[in-house]
């Protein structure tokens, strides 16, 4: 079974530039999560999707971050414009549904903003 796929794995951009991350969850998983992980910290939830619906985006900085999950499968997380403090690892995870506590994580995208 293929795991959660994320791309790109690494991204270096200059501040004020836009950036997008892509995630393909495990087939059949209805719930998709985007997390932010700073160095030496645990993942922090940015947004959670149930199928196409964003059911928890309370921690998403909506002035610069946006996300979408068209057709309830793949998802894209965008930052525009990026700031120096956005440098971190962006993790995508999926689970069968929100009632399942088994979240499967992708390898993450490491973003460096210069």
């Amino acid at each position, binding site marked *: 079974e293929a795991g*959660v796929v994320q791309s790109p794995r690494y991204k270096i951009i200059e501040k004020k530039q836009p950036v997008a991350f892509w995630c393909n969850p495990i087939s059949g998983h209805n719930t998709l999560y985007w997390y932010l992980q700073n160095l*030496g*910290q*645990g*993942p*922090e*939830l940015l947004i*959670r999707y149930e199928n196409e619906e964003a059911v*928890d985006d309370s921690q998403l900085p909506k002035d610069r971050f946006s996300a979408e999950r068209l057709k309830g499968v793949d998802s894209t997380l965008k930052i525009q414009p990026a700031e120096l403090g956005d440098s971190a690892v962006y*993790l995508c*995870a999926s689970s069968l549904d*929100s009632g399942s*506590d*088994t*979240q*499967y*994580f*992708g*390898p*993450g995208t*490491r973003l460096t903003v210069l």
Partner: protein
Amino acid sequence: QKEVEQDPGPLSVPEGAIVSLNCTYSNSAFQYFMWYRQYSRKGPELLMYTYSSGNKEDGRFTAQVDKSSKYISLFIRDSQPSDSATYLCAMTAYTGGFKTIFGAGTRLFVKA
């Protein structure tokens, strides 16, 4: 105060040692408790998942939950160099909406 506290380490042990990793939490609404292992430049992978107080064993790993003390532990027996990683505790509450909070992770080094 954070909802979940975890000592960041690093923790360095010799091969074959018993390792004890711990987390404390403040929110009594947490019902499900997980331990994830994260290798460098990889995503976290689920190791153990428990619901009730008590112990759960899986091979060399034992997860322990004490809800009365709001304290969870992960024990690793016969530790191996391949166990060197960051171990993250996580816990989920459904009261007032779904919420999963991760600890900051403990870096473990097992020396051969």
